């Protein structure tokens, strides 16, 4: 057995033992997570299948001149999905590879073993692929299956989809790792604010690129549908179909396989595989030359002196939290500093910020030209999108807060504060920070969309309530299922507790958005017998959201606190 295979063998055994150890977990937790994950997958599959069916029926119902439109839109949808997934994978791999290649304690162990740097890098690359790509399989499989079943694709299509999947996730892992190796080699030597400045410029460039892409107008190829939303959507999606994009090779190859054109599909598979191998080779050679320099620099990074008191971002945040009594203020100051001094944390937050800016910038007010039920859909979907952003923030950044106290719990354990104070401090910190972000998003998006006053007020109320509900879920479940062995927040989130929190958040959002959609649609369709019935329904929906948010806040917090108080540190 070579060194490379020895490590991969050990990883296989570790995975096996980890799966086996699930039986030691709470049966309730395993059951809830498994059933929720299965239901979410089935729900996504049904949604995709119904969507594809609707597109097929739409072209038939719209007349002969629309023949092929359903197929065209489906193709474009797959392309857009593949591109979005590809970009997400590159980004997440760049983040994951930083901790996997440089930061985990295992690195020092492997480096003192007789492995070459190339072998070491390949081992870590495989781990990055596995770690960052399972979610794409979970998200992508219902889409591909629904597409195959709707279009009646032959069975080799499913094999082809699987074959494309491997190079499709491998390539971004190699690219992301390469970015990390280059950054670690060159970044420590850069002046203090170079990386944040580069990251900000990158977000701004991405913002203008996506904005230019997303507000693209009709293209000559789509002249049949000129002046329609269909034309705009086709125009947008066409811009994402560059033959230079690996996502295009994957989506084209899979689609060609569904048409039985295996030769052309095989060409794209080979193209994607060749590029994945080439990227792996380049990344491995870069690692062989640059890894040790970067690793040494990281190990001996001259402690950049922290800012003097009274200056900079931390001074502003300290002033903002000054009204808080100690020890809550000390805990908040510590959490804020730990967050902003960890590049893997704030870069993701910055990306969220960029995505939200793109979202708001591309919204358009269609009120004058659209029918009421369309406007009500838009209002409900906007609330849905905003709460989804909130759920992503709480799942990614708030859930790991308690776990990250980890082995430092003894410090807090010795301090004259209670665990109750600690956990509630995390809750209020979450509510304060996510509220500032998400309420701004809701207000700006409602203004951009020209949402009517009642729906506007309801949207703001819903996001405030959701800030409490989703923060309660994240902090409560984070305390109920903490992972004190893990220092990497991304890995804490990907555990079973994190998955449960994400699924519970999705369930919360589904219930809230369903209630709002029904209420607003009935109003738009004029189904209320009188105005009083509308107001009563509005009050009932508001009450439902309040009660649901209160339950989602108090119940997990109570259970989480009870668990932490029983835990021995």
């Amino acid at each position, binding site marked *: *057995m070579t060194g490379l295979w*020895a490590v991969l063998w050990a990883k296989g055994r*570790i995975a096996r033992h980890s799966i086996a150890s699930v039986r030691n977990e709470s049966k309730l937790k395993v059951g809830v997570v498994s059933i929720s994950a299965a239901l979410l997958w089935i729900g996504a599959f049904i949604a995709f299948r119904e969507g594809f069916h609707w597109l097929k029926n739409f072209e038939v119902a719209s007349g002969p001149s629309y023949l092929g439109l359903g197929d065209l839109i489906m193709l474009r949808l797959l392309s857009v999905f593949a591109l979005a997934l590809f970009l997400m994978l590159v980004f997440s791999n760049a983040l994951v590879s930083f901790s996997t290649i440089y930061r985990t304690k295992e690195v*020092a162990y492997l*480096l003192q*073993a*007789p492995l070459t740097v190339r072998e070491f890098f390949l081992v870590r690359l495989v781990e990055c692929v596995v770690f960052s790509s399972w979610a794409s399989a979970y998200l992508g499989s219902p889409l591909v299956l629904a597409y195959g079943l709707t279009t009646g694709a032959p069975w080799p299509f499913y094999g082809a989809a699987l074959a494309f999947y491997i190079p499709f996730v491998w390539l971004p892992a190699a690219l992301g790792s390469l970015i990390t190796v280059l950054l670690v080699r060159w970044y420590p030597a850069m002046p203090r604010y170079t990386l944040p400045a580069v990251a900000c410029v990158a977000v701004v460039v991405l913002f203008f690129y996506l904005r230019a892409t997303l507000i693209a107008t009709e293209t000559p190829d789509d002249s049949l549908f000129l002046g329609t939303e269909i034309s705009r959507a086709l125009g947008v999606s066409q811009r994402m179909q560059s033959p230079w994009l690996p996502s295009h090779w994957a989506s084209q190859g899979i689609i060609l396989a569904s048409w039985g054109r295996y030769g052309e599909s095989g060409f794209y598979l080979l193209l994607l595989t060749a590029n994945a191998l080439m990227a792996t080779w380049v990344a491995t050679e870069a690692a062989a030359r640059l890894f040790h320099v970067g690793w040494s620099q990281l*190990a*001996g990074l*001259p402690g950049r002196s922290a800012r003097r008191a009274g200056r900079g971002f931390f001074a502003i945040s300290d002033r903002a939290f000054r009204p808080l009594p100690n020890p809550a203020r000390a805990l908040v100051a510590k959490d804020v500093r730990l967050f902003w001094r960890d590049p893997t944390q704030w870069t993701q937050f910055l990306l969220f910020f960029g995505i939200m800016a793109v979202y708001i910038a591309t919204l358009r007010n269609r009120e004058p030209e659209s029918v009421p039920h369309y406007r009500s859909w838009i209002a409900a979907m906007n609330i849905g999108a905003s709460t989804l952003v909130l759920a992503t923030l709480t799942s990614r950044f708030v859930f790991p807060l308690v776990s990250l106290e980890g082995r430092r719990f003894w410090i807090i354990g010795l301090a004259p504060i209670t665990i109750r104070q600690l956990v509630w401090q995390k809750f209020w910190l979450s509510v304060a920070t996510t509220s500032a972000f998400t309420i701004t998003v809701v207000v700006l998006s409602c203004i951009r969309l020209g949402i009517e006053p009642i729906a506007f007020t309801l949207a703001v109320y819903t996001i405030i309530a959701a800030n409490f509900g989703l923060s309660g879920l994240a902090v409560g479940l984070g305390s109920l299922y903490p992972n004190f062995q893990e220092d990497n927040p991304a890995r804490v989130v990907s555990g079973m507790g994190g998955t449960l929190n994400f699924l519970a958040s999705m369930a919360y959002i589904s219930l809230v958005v369903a209630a709002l959609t029904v209420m607003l649609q009935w109003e738009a369709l004029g189904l209320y017998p009188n105005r009083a019935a509308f107001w009563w329904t509005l009050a009932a929906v508001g009450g439902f959201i309040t009660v649901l948010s209160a339950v989602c806040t108090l119940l997990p917090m109570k259970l989480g606190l009870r668990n932490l108080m029983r835990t021995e540190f």
Partner: protein
Amino acid sequence: MIRIEGLTKQFGDHTAVDDLNLEVRKGEFFCFLGPNGAGKTTTIKILTGLLRPTRGRAEVGGWDVTTHPVEAKALLGYIPDTPYLYEKLTGREFMRFVAGLYRLPEETVATDGEELLALFGIAEVGDRLIEQYSHGMRQKLSFASCFLHRPEVVVVDEPWVGLDPKNVRFVRHFLKEKTREGVTVFMSTHSLSIIEDVADRIGIIHRGKLIHTGSLQETLATARHPGSLEDIFLQLTEEERQP
């Protein structure tokens, strides 16, 4: 077996190891002493290939650890103060994994591996996951796995953490016995009584510079007044501190 020439490691403006020159012979038990932050761990990290030197070179068994890391590390065994072990592997699986890393035949695990597990008293728990081990058991597994590939040079960094007195005594004798078989031991520790018991030669590092090397007798002879190793250590590092 270990040759260090002009070894220097700088972290920015800070010089952690400053022009270190040292040779440790085959079968020698070399103890490396120094106050906190003196440069012991940095030297060990360079020796084990974890860090690259800024200047100078370090050789293990004639192989430069920077230019021929794989060959050098194949001769090397390393026991850190807090060993990293894979929590979700069993003790036996970990031994098998280490055998794979060092390209040892499968049978080695069944023969030498079992022998080492028994020797260190962890054969009975060999099929338990490492996450269930106590700190002492982890340390013993770390020792057992370190000797699986029959290293010619063993670098040990403060290995006594978590071991009970009985095991400290056993490990001390085990390492000494290994040096009699020709294994070179390079040990960093603050346990002066153990050094007095096992060291063939002592090196004292302070502020990145090797300020003294010699046998125990030679070291004790440097004292202005007769005293213990502790007195000598304090005297040497104190003198260095004064201009």
